[in-house]
């Protein structure tokens, strides 16, 4: 696709989606190599990222349009309920566990925290910060919990380099390398399979 057209197509896609769209997805839609997409988005960022009320940011391995923080008072007048954004420390703990240990069961979360977490899990699910995805093989086949895409936006996590690895946490004391996956792997996989590229989830009938 020709650069000027590609730029406008990406603008249209980002606007319609609202949520992040992965580079891979944009590349598929526009039938353009991913490097060209990065290049074009960078040009778009330059164009947009000064002198406008919105900007293009990279979140959770995808691109999205976000409003500049200066205009949050106006946004909050339009959507007053968006202002209630307190995060309890227990919610942050459950999210941490989901982030580093995903996929993880409720029982495993309870075990790590040493207290029952089902209420917190229910609320996080309701708020789309985590999601159920599959079941664990074994007795009772408990449901598996994973981080959901809006998490990356809420916490402003661009990619893995934005969070310490599991090994780096805890003051880097001697490590037992029992963890098979690094959070880095998880986020990358998330983005691939369940993250920002999941734009088809909101099915709708257009024939009436």
């Amino acid at each position, binding site marked *: 696709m020709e650069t000027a057209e590609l730029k406008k197509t990406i603008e249209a896609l980002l606007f319609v989606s609202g949520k992040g769209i992965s580079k891979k997805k944009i590349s598929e839609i526009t039938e353009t190599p991913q490097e060209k997409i990065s290049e074009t988005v960078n040009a778009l960022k330059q164009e947009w990222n000064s002198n406008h009320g919105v900007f293009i940011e990279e979140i959770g391995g995808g691109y999205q349009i*976000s409003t500049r923080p200066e205009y949050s008072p106006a946004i909050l007048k339009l959507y007053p309920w968006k202002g*209630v954004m*307190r995060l*309890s420390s*227990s919610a942050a703990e459950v999210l941490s566990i989901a982030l580093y240990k995903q996929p993880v069961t409720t029982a495993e979360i309870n075990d*790590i*925290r*040493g207290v029952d977490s089902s209420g917190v899990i229910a609320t996080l699910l309701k708020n*789309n910060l985590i999601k159920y995805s599959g079941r664990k093989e074994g007795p009772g086949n408990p449901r598996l919990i994973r981080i959901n895409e809006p998490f990356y*936006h809420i916490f402003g996590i661009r990619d893995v380099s934005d969070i310490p690895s599991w090994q780096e946490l805890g003051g880097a004391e001697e490590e037992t390398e029992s963890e098979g996956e690094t959070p880095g792997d998880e986020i990358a996989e998330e983005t691939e399979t369940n993250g920002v590229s999941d734009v088809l989830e909101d099915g709708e009938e257009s024939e009436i």
Partner: protein
Amino acid sequence: MNGKNYIVRLDAFEGPLDLLLWLIQNNNMDIYDIEISKITAQYLTFIGARTAELDAAADFLSMATLLMRIKSSLMLPKESPEYQEAVEQQRDLSEKLMEWKKIKESRGILLEKHQSRKNFFRRDEPAAVEIDKKSTLSVFELADIFANLIRTHDKNFDTITGPEIYLEDVKADILERFKSADEIKISGMLQAFPSKLYLAVLILAILDLAHDGIASLRQEKPFAEIYLTSINGGKQALPREENYAQEVTYGNS
């Protein structure tokens, strides 16, 4: 532990691991080298003074039990199975403490990141604007339809028209049949409602379902029976995520 630490309330701790970690750090001990008898004594003193505060008493008490068991088993001869088991249990406890420590640290990072993001907004749902979603009817046609309706209405107010067959009803009917059979014979559906109108709507419904990726059509040869096969159990090809458009708000109750 010195006396001033007793000001700390038990509900400041998330659970027994949190308390244990605090005690260990307070004593400058290594998580992987806990002086079990010292820590056990402090743990017991601490919760002993505060049992009344405890909502989650059971969790704290079961940790106390574990600590005491490890402590007493470690006093047995090293060759005894109990001793070996206690070493194992202490090792497990260290692992859990380290895990907890990491989660606490990550919690702090997330809370901080969250705070710094509170003024950034995006739309979590696709735009209502669909420039490509246009009606195949123009508004003038809509006006004509209304004019015709009014005319018909004035002249034939009492006329009872035949039953209308709705496309969505026929589609729903097919989807209902898919619940019990993966493949439907189209002639079978016509037998139930033998009318030209029904046939016309049925064909539209089938084409729609095929177009939406819900069903596929199969015919062995021209003019032979046509079979409608469900794809994905007759479910919508595009799964709807629950609470998709919900705003994300949360707080600490």
